[in-house]
């Protein structure tokens, strides 16, 4: 029993080596993926309804895309921090 308990921290430390990056990057990618999907979906909707607004919508679209994409990097940076500060 004691021997088994002794192994747990070693196993856990093996997992945590890249765990922060994996969780940060993975969950960040989920959020950013959903967000980017919504943005481009809405852009397609908007352009099909009002094709004459295309240029204006495109410029807003890239602003939204870049702001949403950055969310992925916040997750990644948080993961990298947890890896560096471990």
């Amino acid at each position, binding site marked *: 029993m004691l021997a088994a308990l002794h192994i747990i921290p070693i196993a856990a430390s093996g997992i945590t080596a890249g765990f922060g990056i994996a969780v940060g990057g993975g969950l960040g990618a989920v959020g950013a993926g959903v967000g980017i999907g919504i943005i481009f979906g809405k852009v397609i909707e908007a352009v099909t309804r009002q094709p004459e607004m295309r240029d204006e919508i495109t*410029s807003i679209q*890239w*602003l939204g*895309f*870049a*702001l949403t*994409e*950055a969310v992925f*990097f*916040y997750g*990644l*940076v948080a993961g990298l921090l947890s890896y560096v500060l471990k």
Partner: protein
Amino acid sequence: MTKTQKILFACFGVYIGVFVLLLLIYGFTQHKNNTFQIQNEFKLVNWVSLGVFSINRAVLYLFISAVLTVFTMVWIAGRMQARPNKIQTAVEVIFSLMRDNITRGNMSDSMAARWFPFLGTLFLFIWFCNLVGYLPLPTNTEEKFNLFGAHIPSFALYAATANISVPLVLALVVFIAFVTVGIRTQGAVGYLKSLIPAGVHGPMLLLIFPIEVISTLMRLLSLTIRLWANIFAGHIIILFMAGGLAVILGLQALGWFALPAGIIIYLFELGLVATLQAFIFATLAAIYLGGAVTHH
């Protein structure tokens, strides 16, 4: 089958063929490589030691982009013609993007006239920083290769903006600029009051005001991380796909397999991310500057 299709099929066949050949020669055996340190690709070695003003890779890239920004623009401005050639047309497109989309779209006309030089320079400088970063230059003095007896530093991708201190300084300049503008036009108390959204009264102020102050301070962090992490992550992914992964794991076939992904990501970063991040940085700076003089 058309000719293009035949060529595409031939390329795909060669790609698969080389992959299988590498698998047959080297097999699946993995030799973990512990001597190759991936973080050394981003290491800053001081070439000239001058304390805080030491010259290293990041400083070199900053100089290159600063010189490029000034000289290309001055050179083109000096040879303006009534009938524009191709380069002048391209520069005019960038100019109208900076003037109309970035500056005038986000602030009043009198303010736009005043802040356009700053925001335009910010955009062009970050843009050149990002673009120079995708040019392989012989700057990796950690690893050298031998060419006819001369030890030449390895060619490496590096951008000044892939180092967090450069975006941080740029963001600090923007932050100080918009806070100063806000305090100058509205007074210190007026500026703090303007942070509160309209229609918030009484006890809700205690909750909303700290959040608004923190969100203003977080602009500094988000501006920095957005630019830095985009460029840095792009460089890391290109590095991994174009050989780094194969070197670390010692799997030759994997390196060949991942190479097309590396090329595609390189083109994506060069064509979209480099320009987009410069545009976003300048646009957000303009939005913050424009927002500092108005009440919410």
